[in-house]
């Protein structure tokens, strides 16, 4: 049968009857069984549900029906997306044993398009982290070098694609949690426009920043998946009501005449020299493909990290108040409600989650709100305004995705060192803009480097075009 690298060709061969969804599922399960004891991308497999869905797709093909664009394609979901009747833990002890009573909207849309959900992947607890080491169920390893981290927080989903267990997976991105692991694992990762993809059934971390997006080996597969999962959902009050422009039809339109700006503030201090060199080569490749390339200054982006580490913990402290031992997950009993709440939360949350809850509670507390949360929200406007000014002269922007290639497990034990991983990716979340990480050659250590294409609100079609041009150019790199 067709391999597990390309969703588009696998779906085509299932639709044509050359192979079956059942065979594709079996191949995916065999690949996981062969290697996941070492990589540990998956927390749970959803074998029963997958078998039912694969059988339904095969029955539809046999009956001569046209199945969806992801017909029979095995797919992995980050374990912070609700799957009815199957575990959803957020890699936290506090949700151990919980089986959601409903499916996330993205799960319904994927299955309606024919995709087969094979399992749930590891993450940093509640998506807080950049290495997937911070999981209550152990670290995930980078399939390209198992002494290294896969990045995070969606490290399990990035690793599942990189290890060729599945051609597609979904992650969530609050400050870089799709793009940074994509960069470290050598795959494509997309953070869509805020509101483009429904968050219904995505367990909330920072609600004004969170967005679901795909991982894939190719820009084309990521575009197909984005077109499937995006679009208005009445169950998410922040879902954009206007119809979105599909990205697949214009994917190969090239970059001729596009104006692309390299963000100068994201090309300096703190970024490794080999990563900078690849980003410059990516800019040259876009110029060679017909784009006009120049540098552009977006000065407030250097304050993005500081603003993010107030806004995200503040929203998290509020969102995570719901884990009180009453409605779902674990409870550690106590003589009264307050003691039970405290016992449950103290035992159920890991250290990074506690750190962010406390930081957020402090930033929102009386007397500090204006100094911290209020100020960070104003910086958000500043970054957004400066991006808008940059987009008066440019169609798209370019930067590195991650300051470095994949680092060794345990290398960044200090929280602030880990937070710095997100310096290039955070500005897009603060502004709500889409961006994509595309593999572009390797660093001095032979590990993948990702380059980030940033686009204005809802300009995914343009963003995917430039990403496609980069992917073509990357094929010819030394």
């Amino acid at each position, binding site marked *: 049968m067709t391999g597990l690298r390309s969703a588009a060709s696998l779906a085509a061969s299932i639709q044509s009857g050359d192979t079956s969804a059942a065979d594709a599922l079996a191949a995916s399960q065999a690949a996981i069984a062969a290697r996941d004891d070492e990589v540990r991308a998956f927390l749970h497999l959803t074998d029963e549900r997958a078998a039912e869905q694969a059988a339904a797709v095969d029955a539809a093909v046999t009956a001569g029906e046209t199945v969806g664009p992801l017909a029979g394609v095995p797919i992995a979901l980050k374990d912070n997306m609700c799957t009815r009747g199957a575990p959803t833990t957020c890699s936290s002890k506090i949700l151990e044993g919980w089986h959601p*009573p409903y499916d996330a909207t993205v799960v319904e849309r994927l299955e309606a398009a024919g995709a087969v959900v094979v399992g749930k992947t590891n993450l940093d607890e509640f998506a807080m982290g950049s290495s997937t080491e911070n999981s209550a169920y152990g670290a995930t390893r980078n399939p390209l070098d198992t002494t290294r981290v896969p990045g995070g927080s969606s490290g399990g989903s990035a690793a599942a694609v990189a290890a060729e267990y599945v051609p597609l997976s979904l992650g969530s991105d609050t400050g870089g949690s799709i793009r940074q692991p994509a960069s470290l694992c050598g795959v494509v990762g997309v953070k869509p426009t805020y509101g483009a993809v429904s968050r219904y059934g995505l367990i909330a971390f920072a609600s004004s920043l969170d967005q679901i997006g795909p991982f894939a080996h190719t820009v084309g597969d990521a575009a197909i998946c984005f077109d499937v999962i995006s679009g208005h959902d*009445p169950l998410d009050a922040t879902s954009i009501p206007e119809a979105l422009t599909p990205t697949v039809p214009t994917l190969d339109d090239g970059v001729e005449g596009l104006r692309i700006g390299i963000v100068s503030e994201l090309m300096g201090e703190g970024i490794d020299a080999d990563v900078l060199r690849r980003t410059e080569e990516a800019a040259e490749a876009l110029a060679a493909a017909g784009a006009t390339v120049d540098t552009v200054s977006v000065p407030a982006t250097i304050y993005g990290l500081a603003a993010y580490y107030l806004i995200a913990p503040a929203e998290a402290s509020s969102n995570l108040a719901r884990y009180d031992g*009453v409605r779902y997950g674990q409870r550690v009993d106590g*003589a009264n409600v307050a003691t039970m709440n405290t016992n449950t939360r103290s035992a159920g949350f890991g250290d990074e989650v506690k750190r962010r809850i406390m930081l957020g509670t402090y930033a929102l507390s009386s007397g*500090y709100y204006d*100094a911290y949360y209020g100020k960070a929200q104003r910086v958000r*406007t500043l970054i957004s305004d400066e991006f808008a000014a940059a987009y008066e002269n440019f169609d798209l922007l370019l930067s590195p995705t991650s300051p470095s290639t994949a680092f060794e497990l345990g290398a960044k034990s200090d929280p602030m060192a880990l937070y710095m991983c997100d310096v290039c990716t955070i500005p897009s979340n603060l502004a709500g803009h889409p961006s994509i990480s595309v593999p572009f050659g390797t660093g001095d250590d032979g590990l993948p480097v990702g380059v980030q294409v940033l686009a204005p609100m809802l300009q995914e079609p343009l963003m995917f075009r430039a990403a496609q041009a980069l992917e073509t150019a990357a094929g010819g790199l030394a």
Partner: protein
Amino acid sequence: MSGEISRDEVAHVASLARLRLTDDELTTFTDQLCVVLETAAQLNALDLDDVEPMAQPYPLSNVLRPDVVVESLDRDEVLSQAPAAEDGRFRVPPALGEAP
């Protein structure tokens, strides 16, 4: 904002957030939160008086659904996932006083 937080303040914040910390944890978290708040203090360099705060990137207001009855989550399925339930409700320890 000074970019610092005291041990007592961390203990207070932890109690507001319903978290119990050991003495060692209190020391470690205080040190770590100080480092993060020092980074946050970079924002003091900016003049933001004339800048409006931004709560979310794509403002929508009054997002309402039609007032019609639709199917909701199955009550028994929801309650089956709770740590304790009884008579169609979530069961909790006493809110006032203590359990015998």
